């Protein structure tokens, strides 16, 4: 049970994620119109994952070869792949809710497996079930600690969404490198390479753009194509 839930299924999900880069680029472009913010893909992955979390399904995938085949196909193709295609489109809030829910699921199921006096799978013994529960509690705790660390240290990367996947930027935090002037974009890239998060790199890029020397005729001023009324990054946010 421990091996199936904490090794086999995660590996199958990982295999699905690895498929994402080899999907022909026109496919994500076509499904994008149906998957704004990665929401539909996330729902699909979550529902299929829910099915494979049922004790009955785990049992059946051992007892019935057809269910085993269904698992080996559906976990990579309907969980891993949609997840990998949707994650880059997800906003900060969606990612946060997903991660919090993953942590909560580890705690709920881990606790259930740990304390349940009855075997939930006919194919697995009680000691295996209890060990799985303990491991899940530990993993959930570790994940929570990592999330907390990321949040507290302000390094939670909301990702630089690919151009065109976002609604028109209304706040400079949502600007993508493509919307920056060439100088600012290269400063942004440098900053990202130095390990800064998206916001940090944007600030660095904006700062660099403001420090640039006199514009030439062939090179337009480095002033950013900032929408009217948008806020200028203030020093108070640089500590983030």
């Amino acid at each position, binding site marked *: 049970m421990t091996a199936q839930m904490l090794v086999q299924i995660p590996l199958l999900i990982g295999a699905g994620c690895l498929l994402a880069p080899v999907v022909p680029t026109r496919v994500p472009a076509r499904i994008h119109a*149906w998957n704004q913010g990665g929401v539909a893909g996330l729902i*699909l992955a979550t529902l299929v994952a829910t*099915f494979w979390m049922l004790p009955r399904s785990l049992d059946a995938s051992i007892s019935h070869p057809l269910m085993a085949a269904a698992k080996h196909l559906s976990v990579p193709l309907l969980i891993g792949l949609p997840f990998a295609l949707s994650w880059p489109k997800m906003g900060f809030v969606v990612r946060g809710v997903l991660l919090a829910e993953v942590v909560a699921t580890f705690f709920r199921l881990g606790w259930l497996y740990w304390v349940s006096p009855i075997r939930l799978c006919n194919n697995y013994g009680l000691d295996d079930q209890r060990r799985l529960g303990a491991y899940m509690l530990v993993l959930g705790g570790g994940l929570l600690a990592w999330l907390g660390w990321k949040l507290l240290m302000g390094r939670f990367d909301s990702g630089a969404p690919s151009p065109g996947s976002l609604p028109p930027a209304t706040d400079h935090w949502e600007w993508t490198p493509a919307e920056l002037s060439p100088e600012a974009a290269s400063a942004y890239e440098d900053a990202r390479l130095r390990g800064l998060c998206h916001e940090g790199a944007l600030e660095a890029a904006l700062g660099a753009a403001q420090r640039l020397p006199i514009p030439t005729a062939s090179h337009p001023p480095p002033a950013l194509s900032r929408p009217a009324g948008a806020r200028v990054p203030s020093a108070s946010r640089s500590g983030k």
Partner: protein
Amino acid sequence: MSALRTAVLSVALLVAGGEGIAIATDGFRAFTTETARRLAVRRRPVGLPAVPLENQSGVAFTVDDLRGRWVLVDFIYTRCLTMCAVLGGDFSQLERQLAEPIARGRLQLLSVSFDPAHDAPADLASYLTRFRGHGPGWEAARPVAEEGLKQITTAFGITVIPDQLGGYTHNAAIHLVDPAGRLVDIYDVGQVELVTRSVLDRLTP
């Protein structure tokens, strides 16, 4: 536009997925194989194969020979010190409480061993003695062939897995077979009162 499409697709996925999970859990009632097995049997009784068995006295018979009587069946192996001991206690109690229909030949108790390699008729006999099973109301039997063992455990939905102590872990329950030779109900270990009431209800016309 793409927000609308995404919303439509998401709702469709949620409805389809919710429906799928409802089907997969028998309407959110059965999350484990064991619960599902019980619900399925109650909804649709399972016809049992005519598996050749051998009882504690070495007498050969088949599951079909039990037709015409109600039969309470459990699955055990005689070396078992945990679940089978509880089941043995339950059957011992049932034999006393249901002595009347047993005496009239309308009910039979049967303990089937899923470890025929170790459980020779002598072992089965001593198992019955251990729980003061008096026979012929309570018999213990083992499948004669490996094939029969597989057939009977599959029909009843019994999963047996080896444990680390050289024994087995198995889903233990009390099974009720009707006079037509169909598995019609499954009860939890320890539900002696419920089984007694249920059997008496079914026997009174």
